[in-house]
């Protein structure tokens, strides 16, 4: 295996080069992070006039709250569904698009351009699509006999949210998977064709293992997406309705902090999220960077 590290001995130059980057991280990440940790130990009155140091009271309130538990559960299920379907669908589309010989670029363009739509705009588009009066998708769904009511039914609202989130994320995954597929050399695929008659089996024994690094990387990206980047979608589509059933952990930080003005509780939730991100990063380093390697 190649030695990937470059060694500089004792020269200050590399440190000077990374100073701007470090400054940016310090100002935009470390300082707010410290603020969040600090605030999570404080109890502040809604007007911001006084605050008291309360040790772990915010965390105690948080972890004994049934509402936070259900939010966490919803977030995990939602995340799992979004990651699974957006990766699966993107992989399927990429494999199909890669085997198309004529007009491949048209397929690529069609499947990619949703990526350029901002989350909030995607949310509004979806809002119209699912609108009770003018929504095309709403019409289709009700025509199947399903009394679709995302405003009042938690399950329906979740389905809608998952659907839209997957739709928004598929293009990113598609681009990466397609690039991965095109990185597999033609003669390798041909060698496999000679060795294995079943296309299905070839996919799972040759193509998929070769895509594994891409898939692992995308999984981390998608988890981050489902946790953090779906804020805009939720805010335009459901705002956590009905009754907080579609509130994710990140959306709850916003609700409790900005709408409920409970800065301490909101900060405690941020800290929980930071720990989760930390774990995800460790996971990425352990598996993605080390294991999936040949």
């Amino acid at each position, binding site marked *: 295996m190649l030695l990937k590290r470059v060694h500089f001995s004792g020269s200050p130059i590399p440190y000077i080069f990374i100073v701007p980057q470090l400054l940016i991280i310090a100002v935009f990440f470390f300082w707010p992070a410290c603020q969040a940790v600090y605030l999570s130990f404080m109890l502040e009155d809604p007007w911001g006039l006084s605050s008291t140091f309360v040790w772990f009271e915010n965390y105690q309130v948080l972890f004994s709250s049934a509402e936070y538990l259900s939010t966490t559960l919803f977030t995990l299920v939602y995340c799992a569904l979004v990651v699974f379907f957006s990766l699966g669908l993107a992989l399927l589309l990429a494999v199909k698009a890669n085997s198309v010989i004529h007009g491949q670029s048209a397929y690529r363009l069609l499947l990619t351009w949703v990526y350029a739509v901002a989350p909030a705009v995607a949310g509004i588009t979806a809002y119209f699509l699912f609108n009770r009066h003018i929504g095309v998708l709403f019409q289709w769904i009700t025509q199947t006999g399903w009394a679709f009511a995302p405003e009042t039914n938690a399950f329906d609202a979740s389905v809608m949210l998952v659907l839209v989130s997957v739709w928004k994320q598929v293009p990113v995954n598609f681009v990466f998977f397609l690039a991965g597929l095109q990185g597999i050399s033609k*003669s*390798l695929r*041909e*060698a496999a*064709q000679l060795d294995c*008659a*079943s296309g299905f089996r070839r996919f799972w*024994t040759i193509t998929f293992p*070769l895509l*594994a690094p891409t898939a692992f990387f995308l999984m981390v990206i998608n988890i981050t997406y489902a946790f953090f980047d779906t804020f805009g979608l939720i805010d335009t589509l459901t705002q956590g309705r009905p009754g907080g059933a579609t509130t994710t952990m990140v959306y709850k930080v916003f609700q409790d902090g900005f709408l409920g003005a409970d800065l301490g509780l909101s900060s405690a939730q941020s800290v929980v999220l930071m720990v989760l991100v930390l774990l995800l990063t460790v996971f990425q380093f352990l598996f993605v960077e080390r294991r999936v390697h040949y």
Partner: protein
Amino acid sequence: MGALRLTNIHKTYANGHQAVRGINIEIEKGEFLVLVGPSGCGKSTLLRTIAGLEAISEGEIHIAGQRVDTEAPAKRDIAMVFQNYALYPHMTVYKNMAYGLHNRGVDKQTIDQKVKHAAGLLKLTDYLHRKPSQLSGGQRQRVAMGRAIVRDPQAFLFDEPLSNLDAKLRVQMRNEIKTLQRSLGTTSVYVTHDQTEAMTLADRLAVVNAGVIEQMGSPMEIYERPQTVFVAGFIGSPAMNFLTGRLHNGRLEIGELSIVLQQPPRFDGEVIVGLRPEHLYRQAEHAFSLPFQIEVLEPLGADTLVWGHVSGVQETVVARLSRAYPADAPRTLTLYFNEAELHLFDAATEQRLS
């Protein structure tokens, strides 16, 4: 009945390019056939149609008496060795070799036995648990060979398997492939544009040009009696000298030279005279002589290539003289040749006159 029979194979690509235009070959069991030809002549295309990686537009392919041209590649019982080896990077050497057998439902014990046997033949036993990225080019080449051998197929197909290796390794692997093929007795089709490889490996050589076979025969047959100007120029290094001349009543005129042939072909008119560089001699015991003006000397060690002109002839002529030729020797020289080593072609059709 041949082990591999190609009948009237045509291949036209989707863009209308006719890569193969009517090829007929019958290969005996255990025979080593080499397809040789210039770049883009369609040799890879032909090989890939045999493998089933390209569909043929017309014709029939029979392997061991079975018509296979509509079968999937994996169903044709052939194994192919690719130029860039095409090893599965995520599998160990062992798994690379076992993969094809495993997919054919061979039991684990038989697989293990076959893989170990092939690894023994190819001196790969110590590398079975390595990944392809941890092997040298030559070792990867062997694994690719091993992957073909363990399958014990009806035929091996090779598409320039040695062109990614350095010159020395190429010679070594060439010999190993030949020995291995002999001992296994597996019918083989080998594509190359390297004529040394072609001459040394082939039981039979097919010279391909622009999608058709110009000539097929044993390497020496092709070297000694090329049927067309193309074949004559393609086989042999440096290439054969071609001089334009006239044949009239058994008298051959080349520039200022005029010689009477002992066994002239029945032909009058413009001819192309072919004479190999190694068939020009300095010794006077050969029948005919040429005055030769030296321009460039290329010492090769054992031999010297001498480039120059024959008076009255436009084309540059090259002679391969044995031993070193002193650089300060006279710049004019008389070279000798034999009638038997002359190749005469009709200038209009470029076909051999015999």
